[in-house]
């Protein structure tokens, strides 16, 4: 067990073992299930740090999975490079804190073992994505995080809204995965390999139409659209907030949704080799997403939904970062800082929600600053980090992405700077409405600081939220380029921060009873969700009903039953001709056989 070669395997499979153990051995033991989950997460975290701190460790062993000699081979293999090491520690560290926090948040829930089993399954799947050394393995775990997300969003399965949200999340992700798989198939056919190393190596050697490679990369990018909730496949993420808040924090803010960005960073050399248009498209998708989601966030009333749209927006920044920067590390840096502060913000939201007996509407909160000071402090840190305040982690990572955007495309630069203004606005709006003013509800009146099992993870997360971006720290995790950042970038971002803050302060600092601003277009998420509902109900549903009708009345009714009737009618006619039924059939049967045999032999 002490062989470092085994560590990554233990990290990968321990959560699966834990999930199975909870499901089969402890299906009714809440405490044991929680302990199993927390200890497993802690174990993976401990080993991940060991692996991180041992840069000489290389894993060459593979487990064969699917082998067709001479044609195809997919192993379960582990890739250990800087990218996966950093992601390992991010995922396991945050997971451990969220696992602990969950023990407090889920207290009294009827399905704690189910919850922890699903969380462990998630951890297993997520680590599989991180460690995958080939595309098919990544796809395997990609699907598995999808199903664990489905289970966790649907944790309160009796609620219709939660059941619908879970289903939607899985289905929308499958749409992305459709493109992802197709892209994998195309890259495989072109390069003859599904291994990341093999694809990169062979790409230079093979010649193909540049359009083919571009199409393949963009299809692979569809996987990111789904998993990282980029437009137009972003709709599932806000609805996923139906899940328990720790789940929103771990899966739908810090780690799982970042998998799309991680995947792009993993295949970064392929993207560089692809035609320019690929990164162009990725850049625009990211830019539009980060701005549009910011707009939608400004008008949400549910505390978790504000954060969800913010997550989509920040993922948009990361996607822009992949497209404009010369190294995947730039986007990964933002993923890194964002994971800490967004996770913390969600856990803060969870504390507020629990303190207010599952109230999520920010207009029923207010005045929580004095009642929940620790939570308020953490929200302040998170807000400042998210809004990109100098001295806080988010500032450094966002700054870098926007700087590269400036170098790549002026319009995109202004879009990302505008999104920074929106970020600052909606975050301060959230803070002012929730924590300042007077309590606007019975529950807010009596809110109390949550127990230590919930506040300690918060405080622990506040440290990296503050400091993870400092160059002295970041240099241990990333190999960041240091471009000459033009002054305009700093000025634009600082202006965005200030203007956003001032606007929010002017509108919300005095604690109004309801939102003084009403922009239905933003509140209704640009009507994109409505469009999809229409599409599903009318186009998909219509096709289904039409097909069903056709199947019943035309294929089965006209052809099958019709043919049968014709045979029957023939028999009837023959009976009129004084032939017995049986003889008639025998005659026709025999004649038919003879005719066919004759044809077959003498044709």
């Amino acid at each position, binding site marked *: 067990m002490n062989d470092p070669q085994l560590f990554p395997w233990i990290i990968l499979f321990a959560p699966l073992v834990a999930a199975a153990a909870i499901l089969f051995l402890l299906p009714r033991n809440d405490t044991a299930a929680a302990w199993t989950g927390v200890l497993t997460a802690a174990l993976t975290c401990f080993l991940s740090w060991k692996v991180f701190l041992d840069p000489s460790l290389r894993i060459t062993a593979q487990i064969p*999975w*699917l*082998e*067709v*000699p*001479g*044609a*195809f081979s*997919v192993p379960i293999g582990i890739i250990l490079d800087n990218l996966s090491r950093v992601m390992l520690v991010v995922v396991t560290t945050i997971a451990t804190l969220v696992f602990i926090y969950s023990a407090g948040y889920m207290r009294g829930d009827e399905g704690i073992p189910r919850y922890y089993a699903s969380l462990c399954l998630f951890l297993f799947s997520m680590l599989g994505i991180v460690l995958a050394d080939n595309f*098919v393995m990544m*796809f*395997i*775990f990609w*699907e*598995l995080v999808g*199903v664990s997300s*489905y289970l966790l969003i*649907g944790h309160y*399965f*009796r*609620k219709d809204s*939660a*059941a*619908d949200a879970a*289903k939607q999340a*899985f*289905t929308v992700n*499958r*749409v992305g*995965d*459709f493109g992802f*798989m*197709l892209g994998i*198939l195309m890259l*495989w*056919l*072109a390069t003859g390999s599904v291994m990341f190393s093999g694809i990169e190596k062979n790409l230079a050697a*093979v010649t*193909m*139409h540049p359009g*083919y490679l571009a199409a393949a990369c963009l299809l692979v990018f569809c996987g990111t659209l789904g998993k990282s909730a980029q437009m137009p496949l972003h709709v599932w993420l806000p609805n996923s907030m139906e899940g328990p808040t720790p789940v929103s924090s771990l899966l739908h803010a810090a780690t799982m949704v970042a998998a799309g960005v991680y995947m792009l960073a993993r295949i970064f050399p392929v993207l560089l080799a692809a035609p320019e248009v690929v990164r162009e498209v990725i850049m625009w998708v990211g830019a539009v997403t980060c701005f549009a989601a910011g707009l939608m966030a400004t008008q949400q009333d549910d505390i978790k939904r504000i954060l969800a749209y913010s997550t989509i927006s920040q993922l948009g920044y990361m996607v822009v970062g992949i497209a404009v920067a010369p190294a995947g590390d730039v986007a990964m840096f933002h993923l890194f800082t964002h994971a800490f502060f967004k996770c913390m913000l969600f856990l803060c939201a969870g504390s507020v929600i629990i303190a207010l007996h599952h109230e999520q509407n920010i207009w029923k909160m207010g005045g929580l600053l004095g009642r929940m000071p620790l939570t308020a402090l953490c929200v302040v840190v998170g807000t400042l980090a998210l809004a990109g305040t100098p001295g806080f982690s988010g500032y450094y990572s966002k700054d870098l992405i926007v700087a590269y955007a400036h170098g790549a495309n002026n319009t995109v630069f202004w879009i990302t700077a505008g999104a920074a203004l929106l970020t600052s606005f909606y975050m301060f709006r959230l803070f002012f409405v929730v924590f300042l003013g007077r309590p606007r509800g019975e529950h807010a009146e009596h809110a109390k600081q949550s127990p230590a099992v919930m506040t300690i993870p918060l405080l622990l997360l506040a440290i990296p939220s503050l400091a993870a971006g400092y160059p002295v720290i970041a240099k241990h995790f990333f190999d960041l380029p240091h471009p000459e950042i033009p002054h305009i970038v700093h000025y634009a971002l600082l202006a965005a921060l200030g203007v956003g803050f001032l606007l929010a302060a002017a509108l919300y600092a005095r604690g109004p009873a309801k939102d003084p601003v009403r922009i239905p277009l933003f509140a209704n998420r640009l009507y994109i969700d409505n469009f999809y509902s229409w599409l599903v109900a009318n186009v*998909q*549903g219509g*096709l*289904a*009903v039409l*097909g*069903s009708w056709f*199947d019943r009345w035309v*294929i*089965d009714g006209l*052809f*099958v039953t019709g043919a*049968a009737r014709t045979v029957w009618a023939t028999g009837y006619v023959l009976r009129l001709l004084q032939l017995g039924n049986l003889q008639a059939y025998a005659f026709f049967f025999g004649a038919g056989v003879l005719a*066919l*045999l004759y*044809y*077959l*032999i003498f*044709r």
Partner: protein
Amino acid sequence: MSPLLSLILIPLVTAAFCMAGAAPRRISLFGAGANLLLGLYLLASYNIGIGGFQFVSEKALFPAYGLHFSLGADGLSLVLILLATLVTFAAVWVTPKIEKFAGMFYACLLFISAGAIGAFASIDLFFFYAFHELALIPTFLLIGIWGSGERQRIAWKVTIYLAFGSFILLLGLIGLWLAVPPELRTLDIRLLQQLGSAGMMQPGPVVYLLLLFGFGILIALFPFHTWAPEAYASAPAPAAMLHAGVLKKFGLYGLLRLAVPIFPAEIQQFAHLVLVLLLGNILYVGFVTMAQKRLDLMLGYSSVMHMGYAFLGFVALNQLGLGGMSLMLFAHGLTIAALFALSGEIARRTGTLEFSELGGLAGVAPKLGLLFGFAAMASVGLPGFSTFASEIMIFFGAFARGTAGSFDWFQTATALALWGVVISAVYMLRAYRRVFWGSRGSAVKDETEDVSSGVRWAVILLIAGLLLTGFRPAILLDYLNPVFAYLAP
């Protein structure tokens, strides 16, 4: 006695005991269990290193006509025999208390099993065909006597439809036989394969099409699929399990056994036609599946839809696609058997399978919900289940037919078929959500019972099989790969 003969005789003898009035459930469980163990034993004692047909036994019946009762099994047969014995055991296990003619009911199940195993183990063309016919009769009885809804009309329809398919198939087989040079005339499938691979018999496209559509009707190839959903909805759950899970695979097995070695040129010649039809299975039937308002019909249609993937592996005609197809036969068989077992259980517990009357069932029957969740995820091809491994092989196999840098028929068809992965998620999760999640439906009551222990353990057995072969597809691929290294052109 040859072990393969025992595999066929055990269910027949057990069936005879059932009809003679012995306690049918107990003796059937015993017989089916013994057969499962024997199937596993055969799998273990098959020598992979040597390969080819083993456990061969031949008895000349009418030497003048070249008719032999000969049995033998290669890796492909053994995998399907394992499927048959496994599903039979599960089907017997989940059978609830039968009110009328219980002995007959179990006997019919065992007859289907014997017929299917016989077909998979025969290396003589005549018996290959005859064993399948043997299994159709009990299917008719099971639907006609113990079915639900318009059981008699449906029983007749299915039987006539399938008999029609068998008849076309028979013509094809006769054509095949006639194509053998007279001095070599044989019914031995091994020899036919060799003659076909050596190019010494060329029966031509008509015979291929007869086989394709004859087998195709039995597999519910679009547009010859409308018998299947109705039949599975009406049939009692164990019968649906055996038919959809095992007997239907006879058609695909036949294509692999006969069409692949003898008609490689024709398969390519008509590949476009089959691609269009299989997309009918995947896309068109997929949409029809979405529109279903009853769980059993939806499952029936979904089973039809999945056959499209099997055909995709078939026309890919390479080691990867054919191997994926045969792995899918196994994986799909277990999955659909588990789903029908559970849907039968839902019907028994709530009295309905209408989506509009169900909902929130997982709240009162959590174990049922968990098991159905596993089976549903296997059905949508989630990694970890062998359904996923088989789909991956089929997609890669089909996509590989063509040149990099362009999109030809095969790649377009693969891309469209991939969309089926979305469709199956849509209908399967919708079904799960409507039956198990959300607010309570009118048929779901506080006192609604959870899954019975028979169904529970049988389904766990099936799911364990899916997980085991999904985590380690090599368990089966070790048997299948050599077959297709040999058969694939």
